[in-house]
């Protein structure tokens, strides 16, 4: 595809869409599909007799708990809880009382959708839809108008931080790889999202795969790589299918391969599918897995920008990091840096789960308070329940108690209170949740997902889980605190990779904010939340 053809495709598709009287977009990512979205789409299709009405699939519109969701472009509303029986009304653009969300609904009004901008507006299986919304313009700009170092400069100016969890400045990483003299380099997209309750990356890949491909291609140009890999989870078959479709389309249109957009730039993207090990989200384990080795981490340094895939300099970023790139190139790094918190600009997608009225996906400027996210966007906890804590960062993160509800959700504030941003999972717990049991659950997860290479993590998680399980059975003893703290210290300081280093976080954060609950379990053999069964102790 040449620049002219891209331009033409964009305008032709825009024209075609503007001539339509109505475009009915049915959510077709995992959440709504499991609620029956495909049947809904077919029913609407059958009811649509007007040639100027188009029914198609689209990405995540966020409010997963009220799915299937369907957007109607004619009156700009999102219908919720749609069943095939509503097909007729939706096909004819009629209102359905009580089940329509307008853009000014609190769930949408508080959001700033950059990464999810196309979700709800474009069909993830049609490259034309992406191009019509300005897709691949940034790649064209990066190839035709910018030098590689200018691209890196823009990303540095944006102060974008890696969205995988640790928040390392993306621009610095890009610069390290770009400056490396090697002629063979790789770009890897880490799509191995495995935190319990997190589905941000999956939704981005299912809803807007081309955005990620474009970000990777721009990265390839910036750092001088000709080959990219997407490492996706085998557990997300739909995401895999959509990536495959998107890669095939991009290749066919000449947006991947050789001489991309009439330039000398050559870039290929291949898909690698993980076999379901959480540790493979750790960059060195992920690289080992792509190389066909056992998925376990190797000590750093050397870091991947110096020696990564097959010993070559490798740029490895999260799905969401790459999804930000086209926007940064299009709008400029300075513009991006003005959004969100000064030290961590941009937006962040959070997956709301647990005891909350509106579960689903929201995208907000970084630094938005937890209260805004949970209560304004998420609708708060359901009636009859009381908020107790929010868990962020998955098994590597911690719990945020009610007194920190006004805390801005940015990397540094979260680290300060003993949790972390992580990849964006946000699990809400009410007063019926026992914090000792929450810690036990995450420790069980880490125990089962430890690769077994280093002793602190392999055997330490077993022992920590043992102690926590004993407490929840009412068999805890005084010495357990000391042992938990000692083991936490060992894991935090001596483990080989991030999994072991962060495994004690859920324990430490709940000990910090809910120590009295632990004490009650041990001293009174009582679970204040009424969750743990203490039969054995009595």
């Amino acid at each position, binding site marked *: 595809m040449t620049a002219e053809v891209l331009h033409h495709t964009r305008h032709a598709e825009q024209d075609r869409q503007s001539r339509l009287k109505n475009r009915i977009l049915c959510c077709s990512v995992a959440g709504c599909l499991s609620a029956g979205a495909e049947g809904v789409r077919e029913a609407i299709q059958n009811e649509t007799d007007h040639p100027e009405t188009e029914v198609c699939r689209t990405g995540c519109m966020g409010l997963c708990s009220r799915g299937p969701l369907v957007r109607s472009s004619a009156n700009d509303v999102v219908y919720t809880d749609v069943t095939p029986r509503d097909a007729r009304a939706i096909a004819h653009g009629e209102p359905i009382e009580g089940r329509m969300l307008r853009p000014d609904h609190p769930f949408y009004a508080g959001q700033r959708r950059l990464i999810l901008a196309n979700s709800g507006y474009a069909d993830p299986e049609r490259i034309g839809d992406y191009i019509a919304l300005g897709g691949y313009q940034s790649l064209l700009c990066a190839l035709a108008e910018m030098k590689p170092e200018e691209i890196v400069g823009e990303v540095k100016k944006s102060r974008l931080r890696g969205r995988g969890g640790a928040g390392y400045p993306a621009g610095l990483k890009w610069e390290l790889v770009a400056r490396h003299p090697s002629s063979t380099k790789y770009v890897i997209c880490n799509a191995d999202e495995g935190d319990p309750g997190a589905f941000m990356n999956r939704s981005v890949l299912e809803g807007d795969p081309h955005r990620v491909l474009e970000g990777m291609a721009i990265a390839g140009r910036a750092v001088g790589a000709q080959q990219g890999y997407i490492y996706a989870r085998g557990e997300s078959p739909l995401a895999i299918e959509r990536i495959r479709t998107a890669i095939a389309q991009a290749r066919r249109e000449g947006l991947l391969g050789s001489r991309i957009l009439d330039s000398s730039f050559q870039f290929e993207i291949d898909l690698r599918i993980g076999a379901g090990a959480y540790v493979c989200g750790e960059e060195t384990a992920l690289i080992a897995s792509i190389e066909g080795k056992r998925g376990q981490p190797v000590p750093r340094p050397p870091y991947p920008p110096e020696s990564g895939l097959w010993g070559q300099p490798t740029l490895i970023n999260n799905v969401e990091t790459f999804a930000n790139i086209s926007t940064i190139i299009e709008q400029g790094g300075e513009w991006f840096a003005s959004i969100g918190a000064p030290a961590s600009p941009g937006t962040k997608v959070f997956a709301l789960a647990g005891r909350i009225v509106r579960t689903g996906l929201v995208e907000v400027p970084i630094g938005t308070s937890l209260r805004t996210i949970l209560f304004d966007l998420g609708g708060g906890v359901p009636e009859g329940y009381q908020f107790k804590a929010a868990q962020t960062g998955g098994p590597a993160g911690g719990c945020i108690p009610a007194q920190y509800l006004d805390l801005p959700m940015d990397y540094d504030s979260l680290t300060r209170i003993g949790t972390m941003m992580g990849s964006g999972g946000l699990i809400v717990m009410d007063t019926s949740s026992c914090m000792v049991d929450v810690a036990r659950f995450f420790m069980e997860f880490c125990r089962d997902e430890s690769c077994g290479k280093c002793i602190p993590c392999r055997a330490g998680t077993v*022992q920590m889980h043992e102690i926590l399980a004993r407490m929840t059975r009412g068999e805890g003893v005084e010495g357990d605190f000391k042992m938990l703290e000692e*083991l936490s210290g060992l894991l935090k300081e001596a483990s080989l990779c991030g999994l072991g280093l962060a495994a004690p976080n859920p324990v430490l954060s709940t000990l910090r904010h809910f120590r009295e609950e632990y004490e009650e379990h041990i001293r009174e053999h009582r679970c204040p939340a009424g969750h743990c069964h203490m039969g054995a102790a009595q």
Partner: protein
Amino acid sequence: MSVRTLEVDGKTITALEGETIFSAAWDSGIRIPRLCHLGGLSDYGGCRLCLVEVEGQKKLQPACLTKVAEDMVVRTNTAALQAHRKLIVELLFAERNHVCAVCVVNGACELQDLAARLGVDHIRLKPQYPKLTMDLTHERFALDHNRCILCTRCVRVCDEVEGAHTWDVAGRGRNSHIISDLGDPWGESASCTSCGKCVQVCPTGALFLKGKTVAEMRKNRGFLQYIVTAREKKLWIA
């Protein structure tokens, strides 16, 4: 090759550029504890016993993997490091069934020696007592999973020195275990050359010669030095 001067435990020592802290300290008589490292094999970084404090570094560094640098200040035996090492040894003892009294290498076991040296005289953790098997299918050697600490010395010596790659690790986390070939019985392994190198490098009684009873098995690692040195100096034609 240039020389580096550094300070280890208050002692000024010299080392070759590119050398690791572990080997530089070893040459100066400073013995940093370790179980997975073995001179002549690649380094693994799994046992975490050789972690040391390096001034100016926030994180503890594995001595077996960290290269020396000029004016580096290293502490190998602080109270915090000792506490970590003791706990690691306790974790190992609690993980599988390490019963010295009935072990073939009693008296010559690296894990046992380390426990004695670190003053680990009891285990504060809950022993897991996993039900594990032994592989006695090989004609001359035996594998006892009860005593394995997953240091992977056997995996590395078989792959890097013998070139057979009979051994590898299967399973994840606490279910990790050593397998021969693709989980076949050792005696039926098509790749095993029966050289016995794995038996000799094993730090515990997990790999031993058949016919040895309690406290009779002694390991001999002299061969490793000869082979590796000869290979480095290209003393034979490959």
